[in-house]
């Protein structure tokens, strides 16, 4: 029983007022905890979702080429020699970099110019499961290929070649069946045919060779430059190109979410602080005689200041614990409500974060109670007690 008895007993004396103060502050802490967790995870989730709309790193063999144009006619690149990437080694290298956990999809491509039904058409060998990770927007009449001898036709290519689902065709002497025709995408995918990578490599007599690899990296946890540096070291014979525009667009969205969360958190905490401050102000006014009495009994100004600050600290301590626990639970529930449950790991209890809440929230509460506590400390006993 010491000076702490006074704030503790006073809090217990007015349970409703204490409960409201704790709940308001705890709600603020819970909101901040939940938002902090959700914003970082939602950022990652958003990025993972955006990854489905394309890769952000291109891995190609190093080569010397000339871009030829003459009289307004684009004649394309003329390579002195065609180089390939070794599929197995390259994929292993990409999957083996330090930031491998940031790699969402690795989609190798083998490109072949073939004649189908007498018409020249580009056939792209792809790893369909990986390809669909970066092109989740693909939709098709028919179905996606699930066997090595099946082909997916781009909308324009199918129209030009007269292809429809179930139709058979030959590519470089190998028979394929059209499993589906892509709905128009408005991009290059409309003009080509997609075949199984291994099957096309075998048909072209280039097993294990790929022309380029598209990589989709998640950049919320590290800069894209780190990943490209690591890829360059892992693949010295390859040229690594980061598609900065794509990356910047994604990071802008992620940062927007995080900035929004921080702003909302600050507003919530400020509101909670104002509530605490007002509540302590009202307590000081209510207990003016008590303050005068304490001063008359020899309590120094510092001790009176401590009584009211400790009251706020006690509220902050309780609110920190309740709010942190509530925030951890709420973030799990909110993730479910926002349909992010599968992408966001349930918020884990972190002793360090709890410690931060138990230290930071009481400090914030004490800061909020500073003006009223100072007012209490300045009360003169004669003003408060003596009827002069």
């Amino acid at each position, binding site marked *: 029983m010491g000076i702490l008895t006074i704030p503790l007993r006073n809090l217990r004396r007015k349970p409703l007022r204490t409960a409201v103060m704790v709940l308001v502050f705890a709600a603020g802490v819970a909101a901040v905890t939940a938002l902090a967790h959700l914003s970082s995870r939602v950022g990652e989730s958003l990025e993972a979702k955006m990854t489905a709309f394309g890769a952000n790193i291109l891995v190609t063999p190093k080569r010397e080429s000339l871009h030829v144009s003459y009289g307004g006619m684009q004649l394309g690149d003329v390579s002195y020699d065609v180089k390939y990437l070794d599929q197995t080694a390259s994929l292993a290298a990409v999957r083996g970099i330090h930031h491998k956990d940031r790699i969402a999809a690795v989609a190798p491509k083998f490109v072949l110019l073939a004649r189908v039904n007498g018409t020249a058409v580009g056939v792209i060998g792809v790893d369909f499961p990986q390809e669909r990770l970066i092109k989740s927007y693909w939709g098709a009449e028919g179905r996606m290929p699930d066997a090595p001898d099946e082909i997916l036709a781009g909308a324009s290519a199918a129209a030009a070649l007269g292809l429809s689902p179930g139709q058979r065709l030959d590519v470089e002497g190998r028979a394929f069946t059209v499993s589906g025709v892509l709905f128009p995408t408005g991009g290059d995918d409309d003009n080509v045919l997609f075949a199984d990578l291994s099957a096309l490599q075998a048909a072209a007599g280039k097993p294990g060779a790929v022309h380029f690899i598209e990589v989709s990296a998640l950049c919320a946890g590290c800069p894209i430059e780190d990943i490209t540096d690591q890829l360059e070291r892992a693949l010295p014979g390859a040229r690594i190109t980061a598609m900065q525009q794509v990356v910047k667009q994604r990071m802008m969205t992620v940062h927007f979410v995080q900035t929004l969360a921080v702003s909302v958190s600050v507003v919530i905490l400020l509101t909670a602080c104002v509530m605490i401050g007002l509540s302590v102000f009202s307590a000081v006014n209510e207990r003016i005689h*008590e303050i005068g009495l304490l001063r*008359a009994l020899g309590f120094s100004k510092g001790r009176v200041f401590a009584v009211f600050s400790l009251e706020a600290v006690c509220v902050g301590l309780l609110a920190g614990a309740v709010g942190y626990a509530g925030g951890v639970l709420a973030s799990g529930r909110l993730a479910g409500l926002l349909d992010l449950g599968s992408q966001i790991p349930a918020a884990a209890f972190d002793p360090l974060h709890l410690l931060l809440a138990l230290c930071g929230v009481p400090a914030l509460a004490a800061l909020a109670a500073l003006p009223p506590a100072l007012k209490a400390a300045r009360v003169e006993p004669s003003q408060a007690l003596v009827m002069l």
Partner: protein
Amino acid sequence: MLITATDIVKSYGNDAGQSPALRGASLAIAEGEFACIVGRSGSGKSTLLAVLSTLLRPDAGSIVYRGAELTRLPGRDLDRLRSSEFGMVFQMHHLLPYLTAEENVLLPFMRGFSGITAEQRARAREVLTQVGLSGKEERLPGQLSGGEQQRVAIARALSPAPRVLFADEPTGSLDKATGRGIMGLLQAVNARGVTVVMVTHDPEYAAMAGRRITIDDGRVLTPDGRAA
């Protein structure tokens, strides 16, 4: 003399207007005395008590307590003085409603972060017994009568074993019978060696004190009715 106050001046108000409460009041209190300050309403008796007990700083004049000039002491020394040498009793008991009778008596010892010692608790029980409240230690103020509440307030003032007890109208809010009981208690406290300085407007209670100090218009009067 235990306390010597000389030419005490104290005014209330601001630059727009000053209202003088004490106009050069002088008095001396001997150790072990039971002095009663009397005077009509607005004469300055409560202000004089507040100044003597260091609750209020005078605008001018000198107060010497056991050789120390109180008007020059910094606030923290006055706090220390009030916590160890002076006990205060007010017209209203000012008990903290959320503390039991014993805890209210222990309040002067709750200034620190360390707990209450066994000696302090024993002292609280002792003074509660002295004021006739043995067995009511665990009661909250709301569970006590007005007279009992004032007794707890006196016990609270006595718990740090003060040298001087200042009482401002301690019977002011009590009925006559209860007031007489409180006066008897203050006499008993004084008999144990504690100097008592009390303010009252009631002649009956004033007659129970050993010495009567009359104040009028901010000045202490001599026994023959002149300003001292």
